[in-house]
């Protein structure tokens, strides 16, 4: 039982990371009707920035907010420079653009930092504390705590502020929002900035576990896709719930299902994606098309 609780808890910790990245995917999906295939790579590059800062003696708790701010600005710049010129292009063009962006960022990181895996510092000790008899590591609890703070802040921004309201309006109804005086194009850019910032947090949280290198996020982003699809690709809350479910499921499958471990855990994520698409394409909280004349 204790081991089971431990597995659930570390599943929640990975789930919190997937949830952050899945939320980033959902934010951009809502802003442009498309998944951003470069989301993981953007997070990876931001993590390298944090790494460089920490290496130069900046404290972790200062490097974290700096990186989040830079990632936010970077997301806006990418939207303005790369995405905006093609925003009216067909979906396939946009897919290719974000895939190209992913390749570009990956190559850039390789060029700047090399492909040698580096260990990324964690501010949380690997020591454990007992919760209901289960040994919970401070590392896991720290990841859960930081992710929770970020997710709550995003929730408050989107649901409780006028700016968040305008961002949601611009994402769902650009034409009607323009007629209300909302600067739609800037709201979409802010959406990219926000997504980039949230994604950066997931990169920084996962780096101490996975080792930092340019391909670090490639499996993480698949779990995040699974989480976003499970939660309903357009639902921020769904992304968070989906992330937690994926994290726990994958972790338990790895621990208890015979033969599922290591890379095969990824197969669990794919199985979940396929099952959701077949059985409930809108996901848990996705929007059903309801419309009245």
């Amino acid at each position, binding site marked *: 039982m204790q081991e089971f609780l431990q597995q659930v808890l570390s599943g929640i910790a990975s789930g919190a990371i997937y949830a952050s990245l899945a939320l980033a995917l959902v934010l951009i999906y809502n802003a442009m009707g498309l998944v951003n295939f470069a989301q993981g790579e953007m997070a990876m590059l931001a993590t390298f920035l944090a790494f460089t800062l920490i290496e130069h003696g900046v404290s972790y708790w200062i490097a974290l907010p700096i990186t989040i701010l830079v990632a936010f600005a970077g997301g806006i710049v990418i939207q303005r420079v790369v995405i905006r010129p093609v925003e009216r292009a067909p979906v396939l063009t946009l897919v290719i653009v974000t895939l190209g962006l992913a390749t570009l960022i990956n190559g850039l990181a390789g060029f700047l930092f090399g492909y040698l895996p580096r260990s990324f510092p964690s501010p949380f000790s690997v020591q454990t504390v007992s919760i209901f008899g289960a040994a919970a590591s401070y590392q896991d609890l720290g990841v859960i705590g930081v992710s929770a703070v970020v997710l709550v802040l995003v929730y408050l921004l989107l649901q409780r502020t006028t700016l968040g*309201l305008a961002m*949601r*309006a611009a994402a769902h109804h650009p*034409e*009607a929002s*323009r007629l*209300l*005086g*909302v600067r739609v194009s800037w709201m979409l850019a802010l959406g990219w900035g926000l997504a980039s910032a949230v994604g950066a947090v997931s990169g920084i949280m996962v780096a101490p576990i996975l080792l930092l290198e340019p391909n670090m996020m490639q499996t993480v982003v698949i779990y995040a896709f699974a989480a976003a699809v499970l939660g309903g690709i357009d639902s921020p809350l769904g992304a968070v719930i989906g992330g937690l479910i994926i994290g726990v499921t994958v972790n338990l499958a790895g621990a208890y299902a015979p033969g599922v471990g290591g890379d095969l855990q990824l197969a669990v994520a794919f199985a979940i994606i396929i099952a959701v698409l077949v059985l409930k394409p809108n996901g848990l909280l996705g929007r059903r098309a309801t419309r009245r004349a």
Partner: protein
Amino acid sequence: MALLELDGVRAGYGQTRVLHGVSLSVGEGDVVALLGANGAGKTTTLRAITGGVRWDGIINFGGRSLRRATTESIVRMGIAHVPEGRGVLTELTVEENLRLGAYLRRGGDGLAKDYDRVFGYFPILRERRKLSASTLSGGEQQMLALARALLMKPKLLLLDEPSLGLAPLVVRSIFDIIRAINESDRVAVLLVEQNARLALELSTHAYVLEVGRVAVEGESAKLKTEESVRRSYLGY
């Protein structure tokens, strides 16, 4: 000087030209009707005014050219446009829709009073304010769109077929409220309508479009009584 002035406005979508030189004007506090058959260019005229379609010619609002203005900045000058299909944001709640109406306003300037007035016109919106706007009926959505436009405190209100798809009784009450809004706030109204009879009752001046041009214009009271105009253009 007229509040809104269009002179020789041509516009279209891609290769298709819809407006072939529309000229009209709306004075401060006026209610002007824009009539005509389907496809005559009524909606396109409104879309040109708020920058939703490419156009050339002259469009001036309050003496300023709208030539290079974006939709957002035109709205900021004081034009509220309730588009075809009402432009209700169905992803959001009724209250959030109304808050977006007040999006450009600073809190203090009588906003609370305006909310009271809007809920006075449309008490149903107060009851339903926590609900998703997608749950409203067609008439209620039209009320929401009007209420939201009112919170924008516009100088000019562009209404695109407010009667579309609504029961006659609902249409009647919505037109009464449009009249009340015009009278109490001196908001000018440019009203696009298929229902010519109602529109001519409400308006002081009217233009009839035919394939992208103004075919007839004049005082609404006069147009109403001219048999030939009624028969050939207004269809009643």
